[in-house]
């Protein structure tokens, strides 16, 4: 009887583990079915390497958007990952219980603020700030990176902090007892021990950065041409989809779904390289 239950539950767990695969397959099927024909029609090279996107006039090149996504994601990582990890360290290892009681729910709150609000915040605070400091009209790669960097903070902080907290105190104590400072103990014994959890947070955060749209669209400028300077506007793959899906028909619409296919492959590649990286480190 007990054996029976164990077996059944193991099956349940296995099934649960497979749902995310199933979901990816479903989404994949939907995307590829709707998107691949368009790539065929446009021509893969023209689609992926084309530098002009003018759907009304029959130009469907998404290369500028691929570059745009790369730039902005990289920018968001540069802003968000260090700030996020350092803040997580502060919350787990530096702050007093009282401060933590305020800070923790506040950071959680940051995760719950809708993208639209971030977008308006970006428009009225970050855009003028960047315009005044860096010139241009303010809707730029820089602004979008900054905003996205901020938006991925709660993900990175939340996951990293709990990973840091899960590290047994004995490591920290062992390091202190050798005369290492608090900071050194935290950064050189606790953080490495929490590596896997922090990496999970970073990957989730990057996923969030790539996938985030509503806010980016409000501050990035969205010009569908090759990105030029940091203070100039740019369009990302996701922005392309969000902007035009509402009015697109026929080939235009399919080309947008094909954009999602590219994005999907893009994310897959990032994740594969991350997991390869992790593997390499393990040996």
């Amino acid at each position, binding site marked *: 009887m007990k054996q029976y239950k164990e077996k059944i539950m193991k099956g349940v767990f296995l099934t649960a583990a497979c749902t995310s695969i199933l979901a990816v397959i479903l989404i994949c099927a939907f995307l590829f079915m709707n998107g691949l024909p368009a790539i065929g029609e446009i021509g893969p090279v023209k689609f992926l390497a084309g530098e002009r996107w003018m759907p009304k006039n029959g130009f469907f090149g998404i290369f500028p958007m691929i570059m745009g996504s790369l730039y902005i994601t990289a920018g968001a990582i540069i802003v968000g990952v260090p700030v996020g990890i350092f803040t997580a360290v502060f919350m787990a290892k530096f702050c007093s219980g009282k401060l933590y009681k305020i800070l923790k729910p506040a950071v959680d709150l940051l995760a719950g603020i809708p993208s639209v609000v971030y977008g308006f915040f970006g428009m009225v605070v970050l855009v003028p700030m960047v315009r005044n400091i860096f010139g241009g009209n303010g809707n730029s790669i820089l602004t979008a990176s900054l905003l996205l960097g901020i938006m991925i903070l709660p993900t990175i902080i939340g996951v990293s902090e709990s990973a840091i907290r899960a590290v*047994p105190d*004995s490591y920290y104590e*062992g390091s*202190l007892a*050798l005369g*290492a400072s608090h900071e050194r103990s935290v950064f050189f*014994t606790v953080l490495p021990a929490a590596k896997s959890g922090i990496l999970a947070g970073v990957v989730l955060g990057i996923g969030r950065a790539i996938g985030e749209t509503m806010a980016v669209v409000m501050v990035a400028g969205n010009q569908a041409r090759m990105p030029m300077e940091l203070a100039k506007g740019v369009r990302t793959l996701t922005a392309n989809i969000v902007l035009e899906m509402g009015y697109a028909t026929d080939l235009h619409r399919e080309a947008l779904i094909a954009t999602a296919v590219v994005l999907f492959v893009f994310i897959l590649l990032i994740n594969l390289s991350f997991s390869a990286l992790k593997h390499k480190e393990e040996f």
Partner: protein
Amino acid sequence: MESKIKVQNLDLYYGDFKALKAINLDISPNEITAFIGPSGCGKSTLLKSLNRMNDLVEGCKITGKVTLDGEDIYGDMDINLLRKRVGMVFQKPNPFPMSVYDNVAYGPRTHGVRNKAQLDEIVEKSLRNAAIWDELKDRLKKSAMGLSGGQQQRLCIARALAVEPEVLLMDEPTSALDPISTSKIEDLAAELKSKYTIIMVTHNMQQAVRISDKTAFFLLGEVVEYGKSDQLFSMPKDQRTEDYITGRFG
């Protein structure tokens, strides 16, 4: 002879619980001092007060004074330097989740040793001193987490030795060791005491007799008796000490 460590009128509370009561203790340099007493009597707690590891315990309050070479350790002294000078080996072995080599090199690196050759030398010397070099010399690059309990403990001793402390606090360092490793560690302690001051918590009275110069007997947070080991074990002054060492206790 000047005391190396002087504990004066130390009280320690964990929240409302008074774990140490009016402790007064002079630890002489270049000697081995043993702390004995039943489980829960406060040996580990006093030990941790000597390098301020109790600061980490939420709600732990200390009053009184502890001096190292006459300097108040709860005063202006740099806490990290204090802990470098007063090293510690814990009751439960706690190697870092890194390679054996990095475990031992961690301390020296912390204190500024960067030179590879020098580190290699420190690592080898420390592991040898902790009587574990031969077992581990071929797995220096392997994770320390895969070692047996006793190996982990000796690794932790090596790690503590690598920073060359003046005082070495050991919380039952040999409780997980076999007699051979134990006697190696004991020999090591005897050897080290020419340079260092050693304080060791132990449950093994034979060990205390064998290697310690002085012994402090703890009971319920108090030091009942403190004196030369041979005297304390052969003719204890306090009835409670006698009861304990003759096993007639409780």
